[in-house]
């Protein structure tokens, strides 16, 4: 009896092993294209990157269900970098050692990018970066790194357009003490002064961790009054945005406030409350998925993706979900266009030749000189009204 039981067990065990070994061969005829994802799944951006992961999984599953790319499924390999520079470096190095991995997506934050980009350049692997890069990093003209978000240049151009449309003549910029916020301030000054505006960049700055900006703003208040400033530009990201708006309103300053595209998140309005009313900025189209023009080229993409996100996760899209969609869509498109065998190098060349790809954030065009992809026309003007993002339009500026 015991022997029989033992044999039965052994037999079923062998069958199991056989099934486990053989089944992938039946499901996927061709080997998967692996993509490494190196994001801040823990740390301050954990919730944001979770949205990103959800959206990426959704897109990859859809592509694989439809037969993948020429029969090859896409496989995502997630690694958490914990908002830590050494782990960013360790993760991308690990990805480069696996020769099945064709490209690496991430990291997210500006200050983690430089390391990742340098390793990608050395190891010759495509690195798709989420946040815009600061000018020092962009000036390196790295061959293997691509950005997918709106760059500081086009954000500043769009904001100057907004200022001109609102007929603001004099602006005061209060920027965070990090390179990206500073370059946003400087480009705004450069483009604004080309169009005849007067832009003052404040000597006072703030840190992303500051919880109270009142002391800095007290020093700026007399400048606002004396120079008759028309508009106050808070060049910052994350919680400092709403903190500045609240502190400024508490001090009784009624000057209109401009923000960066990083103001386009629901949690920013929740933090700032009433002080956020009337704040305006330029941002990507996924901030207002339901308010796009009928003839907008990316409207079908945005509406369709918004619908699928709602069906699967119960929440609509935001800028981050849009970036995740765009990353996967760019990868899929480039894989399809690879010349000959898909390798790291043919993939890079294909990605660099992306032309007119309609995505959530706009129409992407990469070229050897432009690794940012988007243009000013891919952004819209947003105003915070009644606790919601509302698109505003101006005849000559769109």
């Amino acid at each position, binding site marked *: 009896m015991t022997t029989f039981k033992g044999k039965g067990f052994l037999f079923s065990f062998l069958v199991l092993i056989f099934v486990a070994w053989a089944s992938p061969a039946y499901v996927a005829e061709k080997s998967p294209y692996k993509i490494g994802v190196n994001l801040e799944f*823990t*740390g*301050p*951006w*954990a*919730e*944001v990157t979770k949205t990103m992961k959800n959206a990426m999984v959704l897109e990859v599953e859809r592509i694989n269900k439809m037969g993948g790319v020429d029969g090859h499924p896409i496989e995502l390999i997630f690694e958490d970098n914990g908002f830590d520079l050494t782990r960013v470096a360790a993760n991308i190095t690990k990805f480069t050692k696996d020769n099945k991995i064709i490209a690496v997506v991430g990291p997210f934050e500006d200050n983690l990018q430089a390391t990742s980009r340098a390793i990608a350049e050395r190891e010759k692997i495509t690195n798709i970066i989420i946040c815009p890069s600061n000018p020092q990093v962009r000036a390196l003209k790295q061959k293997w790194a691509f950005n997918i978000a709106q760059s500081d240049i086009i954000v500043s151009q769009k904001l100057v357009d907004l200022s001109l449309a609102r007929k603001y003549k004099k602006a005061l910029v209060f920027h965070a*003490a990090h390179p990206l916020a500073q370059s946003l301030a400087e480009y705004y000054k450069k483009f604004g002064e080309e169009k005849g505006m007067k832009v003052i960049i404040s*000597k*006072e*700055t*703030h*840190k992303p*961790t*500051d*919880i*109270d900006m*009142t*002391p*800095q703003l*007290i*020093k700026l208040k*007399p*400048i606002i009054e004396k120079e008759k400033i028309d508009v106050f530009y808070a060049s910052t990201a994350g*919680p400092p945005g*709403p*903190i500045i708006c*609240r502190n400024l*309103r*508490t*001090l*009784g300053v009624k000057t209109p406030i401009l923000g960066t595209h990083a103001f386009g998140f629901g*949690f920013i309005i*929740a*933090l*700032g*409350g009433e002080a956020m009313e009337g704040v305006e900025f330029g941002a990507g189209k996924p901030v207002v998925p339901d308010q796009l023009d009928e003839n907008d080229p990316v409207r079908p993409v945005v509406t369709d993706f918004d619908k699928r996100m709602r069906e699967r996760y119960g929440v609509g899209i935001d800028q981050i979900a849009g970036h995740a969609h765009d990353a996967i869509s760019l990868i899929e498109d480039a894989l399809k266009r690879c010349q000959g065998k898909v390798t790291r190098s043919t993939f890079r060349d294909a990605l660099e030749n992306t032309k007119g790809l309609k995505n959530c954030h706009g129409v992407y065009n990469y070229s050897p000189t432009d690794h940012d992809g988007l243009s000013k026309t891919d952004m819209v003007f947003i105003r915070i009204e009644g606790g919601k993002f509302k698109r505003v339009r101006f005849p000559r500026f769109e």
Partner: protein
Amino acid sequence: MNLWAYIPQLLASGITIGAIYALVALGFVTISRASQIINFAQGEFVMLGGIITFFLLKAVNLPYPFAALIAIVIVILIGFMMHVLVIYPLRKASVLILLMATLGASIFLSSTSGLIFGTLPKALPPFSSGSPLSIGEISVLPQSIWILLSTFVLLILLHLLSHRTVLGKAMEASSTDPLGADLLGISRNLMVFLAFGVGAGVGAVAGILITPIFFTSYSSGTILGLKGFIAAVLGGWGKNSGAILGGFVLGVAEALSLVFIPSGYKDAVAFVILLLILYFRPKGILGSPFIDSRRW
């Protein structure tokens, strides 16, 4: 530009943030008076107070006062648990090891909060709505007045506890004279246990008071804890009145420093003040019962 014109408004802003430092410092002092332990998880109690109230208010939909009250009770229970799980098993270890243990507890509490309640910063609605009040040139938020009033009330309550009740005196005795406390039959472990509850409660109140003005995220306890610690040392380690004074001095000094130096160096001011105090008056402004002046 006349620098002196800024000063009234800077003072108002410094006093508000000073009250918060004072509340955090009070929590440090309460625990150290009973046990000589420096509880580096104090900032995390502040963070938990704000975040748990936010959770009860938004996710469970409790009324505001009720949510705040339950949050304080929960944080006090966390304080008790921290004593039972971290401090009590290490009661025979040196103070240095206990300090490391509280540091570990602080990392544990902030990460757990990030996992359970999410990592994005949160803001509570203000206690009383309404626009900023302007007094002459100065404008203040009604919430700042709430903070000042509550700090005052808490100070009186803690003063009564430590100077007018047997319990408070027993708590202090177990720290200043352990042998004497043992001879009088005071359970020192029980006293430290209770002190952790009181310290956590004070921290939670501070958290609920500040979250409407300064947003609270899972990681904001660290810097608040550090500033509160500096305030407690500045005023005189181990004294309630010292903690309050130290908090206000630190807050006002940080705000006023902006008149003279660029804002990028604001955080350094606290540490420079701490160094100066440690060089020239290690007992703090009001003197410390724990630091023997003969050694200096």
